[in-house]
């Protein structure tokens, strides 16, 4: 009797008015994610059931198909959002608005391009099987959920769904110790940052009584907290968690190591996706939930943005490994995207969205080139390998040039407008000093991008004695710059410091080289066999895989096309922000 009673009680608790109510699930709202996850399962089943190993091309085709399907679904959702306005789904834990749909489109695009760029690598390294694609699809669905999540708990879950496959992808090349090392580093630090993030959620919940972003915002708008220490602590911890994901200084330490160690196509994928997902949630949480605390978090973002911009650019200058250089350059890019958040305006968010969209293509394409140049084994990443690349593979070098100068923000590429847009937002928010520092860091960044371009086009013929002395690292100069930046808060002083450091610092390095040359680490070795930089493994020719050609073509084509005709994506980003 008692047992029956308690059973009924349990039943009542489960189904009754006060118990757990299964929310209505609007499947059309999560169709893109469902397509990814369903496709992923299908791939796994096919791989398990097929009598013989299927070629990697098969899985790539399937993944591209899944990506296109989710792109179509996202665009349908976009149409829906544009005509009917934003809506929340699944018990208000998902917010389907223009902002979210832009990321759905972005992730779909990444999932279309990334498999194309991975095929050549997987075949070259002899890693057959469906795992790479499956992991990419899971990670993509996590990024999608992250962009539409309207609840801190869901943000956390999505963050984990995004990150866990990335940890595995980082360690995907089991034969290379560096790859496993990268995976362990990424995992340990990532788990640590997740813990911090969860603690942030807990504190925020404690202070506001909700984890729903809309309710948090409503609570903060209605109530004035007399002592908001707990809330601020929670916000700070949330920021730490996000800053780790987007690799903002001072939470950037993992990124050069992981970027360097991870298999190169996975690095590109990681850079595009983790950054997009991280920024999506960061922008949404801070701009929708904590607008009332703006005066508290804006200065923090200001400092983080400046550190990220300057340190990212400065450390990139002294790298000899192209993947580490690109890792630091991606830190610099994160700083630019933070400008939009710091502005905390609709224009700023739109600018950040545009930047993220553009950046995904740039970074995917860049790492695709690095994959090819590294050759079999994927561990030849020294800058000297790029010497005379234009001679050996003109199309590849040309593509890389476009991608690099676009990252530098050269006119007539997408990079220019993305930088311009965030700067415009920063200036409109009166962050003049921040804008000036950002441009100063762009100057440093341009220097190291151009250095690679110049290396590629410096002929393999011996070029007199002073072989491209600009390769000699003006390390001292660049490291002095951030010190100056910290000493002098004003942008004016910083940039003059940069000029001074750039001017004065390069000279000793040059003098040192012409004197003995021993101080210039490695460059001498690189220059010794002129034209024969390919001492070990030969680099993979671009023509080896039509997939790579197609993927790289998309990246470069988008960079140039939308650099000359930026209107569509800018309008997309603007609309996405207005339907927020």
């Amino acid at each position: 009797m008692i047992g029956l009673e308690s059973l009924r009680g349990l039943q009542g608790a489960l189904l009754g008015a006060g118990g757990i109510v299964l929310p209505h699930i609007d499947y059309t709202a999560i169709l893109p994610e469902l397509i990814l996850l369903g496709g992923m399962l299908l791939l796994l089943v096919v791989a398990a059931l097929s009598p013989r190993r299927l070629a990697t091309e098969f899985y790539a085709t399937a993944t591209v198909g899944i990506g296109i399907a989710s792109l179509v679904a996202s665009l349908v959702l976009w149409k829906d959002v544009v005509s009917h306005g934003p809506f929340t789904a699944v018990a208000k834990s998902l917010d389907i608005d223009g902002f979210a749909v832009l990321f759905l489109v972005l992730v779909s695009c990444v999932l279309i391009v990334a498999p194309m760029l991975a095929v050549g690598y997987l075949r070259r390294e002899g890693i057959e099987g469906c795992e790479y694609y499956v992991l990419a699809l899971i990670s993509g669905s996590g990024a999608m959920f992250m962009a539409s999540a309207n609840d801190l708990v869901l943000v956390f879950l999505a963050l984990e769904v995004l990150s866990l496959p990335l940890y595995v992808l980082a360690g995907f090349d089991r034969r290379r110790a560096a790859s496993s090392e990268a995976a362990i580093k990424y995992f340990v630090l990532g788990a640590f940052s997740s813990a911090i993030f969860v603690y942030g959620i807990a504190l925020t919940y404690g202070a506001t009584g909700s984890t729903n972003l809309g309710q948090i915002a409503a609570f903060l708008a209605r109530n004035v907290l007399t002592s908001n220490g707990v809330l601020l602590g929670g916000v700070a911890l949330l920021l730490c968690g996000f800053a780790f994901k987007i690799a903002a200084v001072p939470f950037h330490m993992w990124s050069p190591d992981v970027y360097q160690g991870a298999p190169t196509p996975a690095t590109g994928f990681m850079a595009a996706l983790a950054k997009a997902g991280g920024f999506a949630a960061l922008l949404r949480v801070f701009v929708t939930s904590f607008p009332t605390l703006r005066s508290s978090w804006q200065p923090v973002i200001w400092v983080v943005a400046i550190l990220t911009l300057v340190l990212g650019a400065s450390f990139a200058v002294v790298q000899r490994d192209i993947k580490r250089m690109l890792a630091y350059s991606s830190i610099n890019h994160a700083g630019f995207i933070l400008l939009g958040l710091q502005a905390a305006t609709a224009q700023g968010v739109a600018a950040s969205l545009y930047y993220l969209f553009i950046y995904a293509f740039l970074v995917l394409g860049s790492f695709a080139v690095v994959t090819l140049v590294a050759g079999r084994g994927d561990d030849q990443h020294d800058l000297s390998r790029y010497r005379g690349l234009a001679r050996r593979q003109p199309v590849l070098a040309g593509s890389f040039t476009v991608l690099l100068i676009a990252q530098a923000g050269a006119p007539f590429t997408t990079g220019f407008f993305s930088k311009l847009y965030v700067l415009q937002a920063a200036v409109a928010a009166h962050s003049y000093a921040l804008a000036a520092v950002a441009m100063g860091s762009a100057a440093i960044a341009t220097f190291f991008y151009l250095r690679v371009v110049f290396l590629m086009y410096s002929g393999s013929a011996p070029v007199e004695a002073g072989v491209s002395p600009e390769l000699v690292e003006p390390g001292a100069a660049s490291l002095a710059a951030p010190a100056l930046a910290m000493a002098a808060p004003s942008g004016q002083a910083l940039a003059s410091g940069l000029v001074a450091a750039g001017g004065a610092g390069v000279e000793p390095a040059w003098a040192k080289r012409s004197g003995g040359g021993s101080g210039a680490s490695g460059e001498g070795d690189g220059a010794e066999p002129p034209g024969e930089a390919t001492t070990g493994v030969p680099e993979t020719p671009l023509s080896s895989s039509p997939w790579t050609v197609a993927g790289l073509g998309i990246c470069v084509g988008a960079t140039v096309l939308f650099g000359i005709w930026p209107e569509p994506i800018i309008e997309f980003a603007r609309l996405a922000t207005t339907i927020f």
Partner: protein
Amino acid sequence: MTLNVSAYGPIVSTGLDSGQRAFPYLTALVLVPAGAALLVLLLPRARVAVVRAVGFAACTGVLGIAAAVLDEFRSGYGGYQMMSEHPWVGAFGFSWTLGVDGISLFLVLMTAVLFPVALASGMQRRDPKSFTFWVLLLESACLGSFLSVDLLLFFLFFEATLVPVYMLVAGWGHERRGYAAAKFFVYTFAASAFMLVGILALVFIHQSQTGVTTFDIRQLANTRLSGPANVLLFCAFTAALAVKAPVFPFHTWSPDAYSEAPAAGSVLLAGVMAKLGTYGIIRFDLGLFPHAVVELAPVLLTLGVIGIIYGGIVAAVQKDLKRLVAFSSLAHIGFIVVGLFALTGESLSGAVIQMVNHGLYTAALFILIAMIYERLGTFQLPKLRGLQHSAPVMAGVFTLVMLASIGVPGLNGFVGEFLILSGAFLTHRWWAVVATGGVVVAAVYLLWAYQQAFHGRPLPAAVSGGSDGPIGTGSADPGPPTGGAKAAPFREMTWREGLVLAPLVVLIVLLGVYPRPVLERITPTVNQLVLHAESAAHARIPALGRPGLTSYLHVAGAARTQGAER
């Protein structure tokens, strides 16, 4: 094609609207070299002759279009002409707006003349395909900068010049080219960072006042700026422009870049690129921030005068002929700066014409020096002596160009310097007096250098081909084909070299003897600019504390008629 009229101040409609859609000359000026550059990129590397032909055809075509622009240009009219306007990015208010007026017309022509010359002077170098590609891209970017009426478009082209120049200096320069190229790049790029922020700030202020987001300088010129904002924006713009020019304390990149660049690179850097800075000052500083210009003119004038004297003195002690010209260039830019900030119609006209003149004779000087280097493999004055014994024609051309650079009447250098100094004398007497000293210093260092290099008994090594003399270094240099120079005496100028220099020499003499057509076209625009600056400055500070600029205009106008009849 509408001849849009408003240059500065309110849009005024005159009867210049021609109605029919004419050929888009200005767009063609920018796109022809860019298109040719892409064409060159597609050509096979081995087809050197085809590459050269395409390069020359494009440069000559641009010169032809520029000549057509000169023909179409209506003199006596101050505003922009031959506008081509196409909206580009509506969200930013960014548009492809090109226009030419009296200030930019001759800079465009000078650019169109100097590029074929530079291409010709650099043709024998290695890897002509890449060289031609970068030169053509640079030409497109330079012309685009001079023609842009949209501030962002100007910045786009202004920045786009950096990559080709970096590549030209780093790829084809002399021993320390990597260092020089990097220094040039970092300096100018970092400085232009301020300009971009300034541009965005100005547009933002304009937008908050009018609700219109635009980069069109004709509309931005009407922005009302508070005193501090005016000064800050002026400083942001001037930082970038002064580094590019280069004005005195920001010049340290230029001697390195000028002297390490290949001949074509020096010609383009000093001849064309430097003018981007001074052109930007007259177009943007004076057009957009006249109030700040009036306020800060003494500072800039002082910097200009320091540049004149300092550049002259440092040039006088140089042993390296190319560095000497680089520092003399600093002095000449100083004259232009004095002309710009003296703020009289006369000095401004002088500054504009001096920009053109400086481009012509500095280009000729760099080409001549490159010829000497090709023969002897050195720029060191102590290693040069008695060149005129074996090369009298070259010595003659050198003398002519040098005299133009000194500012001898009858040659083009005089016209600009005279107008600048007489204009500056009206408003800023003592600065003009000190600046005049610079003319004397110019005579000192150039004549001195000429004496050392061309006069005297030829060095024995230069005649007999000694083993450790300059000839030795010359033959060791892998770049220029010294050929049989080892035993032969210093070679005379060849026909080909003469042909390269001929247009420059003709223009130097022509502009010196008969500058009137040029001044006629420059003056209306300059007067309009002065009026705009005057009214804008007055509008904010009713009591200007010293006589208005217009009162000087009459004097300047009178002086100019005398000058023109001279």
